[in-house]
C-alpha cells in the first residue's frame, strides 16, 4: 500500500462542485496553504470546484489560503467558530453582501462535532451554548439536573490538512500547535489529503509518536518547505499574485 501522491495538483483532483471540505489550521498556524493554492489553481484553470462548503476554525486571513478561496468565489458556505482575524476583509465583505452563508459554532462544539463524525457518534450533548442564540432550534435535554444542547456530527467529503512527517501508510505527526484540528478532520472526511514536510518509510515514525494513524488518511503529498500563513500575511501576500 502506498498513499503518497506525486504532486499537489493530483492531491486535490478529486474535489468536486458542492462538496464539503474540512480545512485544518487555526489562525496563522497549520493551514495547508500549498494544498489550498493548488485547489485555487484548478478552479482558475477549469472553473471547478465551486459551491464548496468549507469547515475551518476561522474564515481566512488576508488574501492567501482560505481567504483567497473565498475571494475567488469558490465557497458558498462556511462552518466556523471565529470568522475574525487580523485581516478578515475578504470574508467580511462577502458575508455582509450576503454572498456567503455562515454557520457559527462554538469552538469546542466544532471540534467535538468533527471528532464525532470521525468516531461514528451521530449526536452528543454539550453544555456549551445552552441558553444562547446559537442553541436556538436545537434539542435540549437535562442530565443530572443540568440542561445540555444536542449537537450533530460533522463529516466531510474531503479534508485538507497540514502535518509534519508522514509515511506511505498515512501515519502522521504534527508540529506544535499546528496539530489543532488536523487529526480530527482526517478522521471525519471520506478522503483526508495531507501535506507533510517529509515522507518517510514505514517505521520512520515511532509507533508511540504517531498522532494520526494511517487508517484515517487517504493521501499524503510532500511539501518540503511549506509556507506559513502568518508569514505570508505579514508580507501582505496575495494569491494568485495576478488574479485572472
Amino acid at each position, binding site marked *: *500500500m502506498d498513499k503518497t501522491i506525486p504532486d499537489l495538483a493530483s492531491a486535490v483532483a478529486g474535489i468536486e462542485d458542492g462538496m464539503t471540505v474540512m480545512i485544518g489550521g487555526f489562525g496563522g498556524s497549520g493551514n495547508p496553504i500549498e494544498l489550498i493554492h493548488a485547489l485555487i489553481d484548478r478552479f482558475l484553470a477549469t472553473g471547478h470546484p465551486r459551491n464548496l462548503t468549507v469547515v475551518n476554525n476561522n474564515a481566512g486571513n488576508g488574501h492567501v489560503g482560505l481567504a483567497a478561496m473565498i475571494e475567488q468565489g469558490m465557497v458558498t458556505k462556511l462552518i466556523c467558530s471565529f470568522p475574525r482575524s487580523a485581516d478578515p476583509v475578504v470574508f467580511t465583505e462577502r458575508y455582509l453582501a450576503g454572498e456567503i452563508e455562515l454557520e457559527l459554532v462554538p469552538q469546542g462544539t466544532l471540534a467535538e462535532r468533527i471528532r464525532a463524525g*470521525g468516531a*461514528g457518534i451521530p449526536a452528543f450533548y454539550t453544555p456549551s451554548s445552552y441558553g444562547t442564540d446559537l442553541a436556538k432550534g436545537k434539542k435540549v435535554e437535562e442530565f443530572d439536573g443540568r440542561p445540555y444542547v444536542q449537537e450533530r456530527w460533522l463529516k466531510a467529503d474531503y479534508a485538507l490538512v497540514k502535518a509534519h512527517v508522514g509515511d506511505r501508510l498515512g501515519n502522521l505527526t504534527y508540529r506544535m500547535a499546528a496539530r489543532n484540528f488536523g487529526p480530527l478532520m482526517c*478522521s471525519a472526511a471520506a478522503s483526508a489529503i495531507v501535506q507533510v514536510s517529509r515522507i518517510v518509510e514505514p*517505521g520512520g515514525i515511532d509507533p508511540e509518536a*504517531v498522532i494520526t*494513524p494511517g*487508517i*484515517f488518511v487517504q493521501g499524503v503529498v510532500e511539501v518540503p518547505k511549506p509556507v506559513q500563513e502568518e508569514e505570508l500575511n505579514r508580507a501582505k501576500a496575495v494569491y494568485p499574485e495576478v488574479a485572472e
Partner: protein
Amino acid sequence: MTEKLTPTQIAWRAAQDITDGAYVNLGIGLPEMVARFQPPGRQAIFHTENGILGFGQAPEPGQEDWDLINAGKKAVTLKPGTAFFHHADSFAMVRGGHLDVAILGAYQVAENGDLANWSTGPKGVPAVGGAMDLVHGARRVAIITDHVTKKGEPKLVESCTLPLTGVGCVTRVYTSLAVVDIEDGHFVLREKLPSISLDDLQSLTGARLHTPGPVGDLTAPEL
C-alpha cells in the same frame, strides 16, 4: 457425515476476499487465523481493539512482550508502520466506519443479517467485548463458522433465537459448506462445496438459500 472444510480452510477462504491494504479486524479465536492466509502480494493492515494498528505475527515462544498483545490477549509483534492509540481512538476507528472488514464468529446468523455471537443465554457469566461495536462499524462484516452447530442444527436461520449482537449487520458468511451473502433480507448462495447438492445444503440451512446468479465451487487447499 458430509465432507466439509476445516476451520483452517474456512479461514483460508475468508482471507482470499481481503484486498491489499485493507484495514481488518479479526475476532478472537478462529477469525484470528485469517491473518495467516493472506494471498501473495497482498498485505492487509490489522487492527486490534486494544490500540494497535498494523501489528505483525506472533513472536517466537519466549520472545513475548506482554505489553504488545492483541484483543485475544495473545502476544503479537511490531511491523514497520505500526501505530499505538488509546481505546477511544481505537473504537473511533471501529464505529466511525474506517475498517474495511471485520471477521467474527457466530452462534447464529439470520437471513436479515442479524447476528448472535456473544451469549448462549442467561446461564453463566455474560461477556461481550468489542463485538457489538465491530458489527456496526466495519464496512463489511463477515462471519466464519461451521455451517451447523455441534448438534447439527442450522446456524444460518430465519431469525436468531439467541441474544443478538447486532441487527442487520452481517454481509457475508463463510461456512464449512458454503459462501453466503446477505442481500435485501435474504441468504444468497455464492459458493458451495462441489460435493454437496443444493438440496442437501438447503436441508442444513434454517432459511431459504436464494440463487439469483451462478453458484461457484467452494474449494480450499489442504492446510
